[in-house]
């Protein structure tokens, strides 16, 4: 589904992603875990076409990608951001937010598809004409996920999709994403600072530090802390939570 070859991305003179290569098969869920400033979000934005200052090779769904994404790319890949409050228009209803991608791609304002999308993410018809501020954080993230799925993309780019949510809601969204992936066979690239979220959502993950992939591991190895890179091991130990002594 995606092949990245030696991707380097810069903010000004600063290389924040350095020579990163990886491949994700169709239907696979690939996690990228790292801490603030590791470059994980920039890498995701390069893939989404939201960050132009990069070099390297990038093939998505068989198509080599340049600086700009081609017309119709919205039907190939969609992105879900950390804070749905920031990514949903505050003065647009849920209905409008979900209709927008359909209208842009020339499908028109399709009521049935909007209701089906709400249902798929566990929302009801009564949520359709609410504004973002009238929804809880978890409901807003459900709307953002529904919007990302409106065009039935093959690839979903998830940037810290649960980090702004309470623990219990976090688990609900992780479960929702898992169900949607199983039902639709969408490919996931999930970026998170949380090893637990990546472990619960992915089959394979890379640990990123200072712009580099320092380790790639199967989730079973990640869960056991079966890692060789010192930083990846440190991150694993810190993720086990507070231990006295």
């Amino acid at each position: 589904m995606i092949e990245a070859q030696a991707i380097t991305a810069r903010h000004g003179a600063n290389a924040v992603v350095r020579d990163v290569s990886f491949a994700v098969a169709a239907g696979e869920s690939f996690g990228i875990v790292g801490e603030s400033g590791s470059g994980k979000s920039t890498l995701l934005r390069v893939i989404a076409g939201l960050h132009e200052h990069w070099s390297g090779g990038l093939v998505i769904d068989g198509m080599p990608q340049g600086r700009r994404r081609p017309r119709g790319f919205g039907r190939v890949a969609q992105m879900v951001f950390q804070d749905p409050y920031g990514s949903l228009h505050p003065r647009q209803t849920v209905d409008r937010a979900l209709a927008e991608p359909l209208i842009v791609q020339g499908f028109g304002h399709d009521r049935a598809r909007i209701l089906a999308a709400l249902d798929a993410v566990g929302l009801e018809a009564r949520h359709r004409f609410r504004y973002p501020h009238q929804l809880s954080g978890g409901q807003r993230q459900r709307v953002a996920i529904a919007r990302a799925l409106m065009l039935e993309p093959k690839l979903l780019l998830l940037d810290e999709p649960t980090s702004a949510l309470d623990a219990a809601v976090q688990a609900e969204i992780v479960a929702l994403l898992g169900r949607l992936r199983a039902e639709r066979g969408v490919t996931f690239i999930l970026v998170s600072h949380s090893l637990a979220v990546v472990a619960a959502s992915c089959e394979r993950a890379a640990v990123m530090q200072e712009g580099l992939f320092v380790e790639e591991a199967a989730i079973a190895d990640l869960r056991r802390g079966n890692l060789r890179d010192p930083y990846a091991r440190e991150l694993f130990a810190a993720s086990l939570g507070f231990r006295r002594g």
Partner: protein
Amino acid sequence: MTAPLLDIEDLSVRFGGHEAVRGVSFSMGRERLGIVGESGAGKSMLGRAIMRLSPPGAAMTAKRLAFDGIDLLQTDMRGVRGKRIGLVFQDPRFSLNPAMTVGEQIEEVLRVHRSLRPRAARDEALKLIGGMQIRDPIAVLRRYPHQLSGGMGQRAMIAMMLAPNPDLLIADEPTSALDASVASGVLALLDREVARRGMAIILISHDLDLVASFCDRVLVMLAGEIVETLAASNLAAARHPYTRKLLSARLKLEA
């Protein structure tokens, strides 16, 4: 039995018609008490109410709010707030004074609450920040809050709150804004200081695992009320459906 350090009976915080904290009662000694609940459960409001720091428009009522024998409903809080009870918030960049260096802020606390002279305050500030496991404490003292990383800011905040040697520290999501590797260091630091000083701590968080691993006892809050009190070592004993839901919702790294 000795009198509790903090004794609260029927405490409520109202905003107009909305009751953010509803008839909360608990007492604690020099222990580690956790308060867990999701956003809007009223846990932060409760923490602030203990300090008599409810926001404008909020009305706090209680049958009893006593700290070490002092009736907090009757005192003007001078000599208690910041001196005997410290408060650490989630993001130090918002709770530190942006126009003062870290050193100036800690020295001010030492002059006001411990009546130290400027020279002694400077020496003590360096000692305090030096105990926060910071690589270059002298440089940190000279920095302004916006020049600090999240973890460094929180260490500076903790140093400042510990400066008056408080009996109780209220830490409201102290590590939620930090990366895991930084958070574990800050928690270890808090843990060590609480033990060394024999003080009490209230740790407020939405993270049940965090609270349970750090504290002796956990209060579970839902919609302004304490719905359950649990020994941290025995979360499995939880009976309230909300606590059970929190327990089942935990994303565990280990298989």
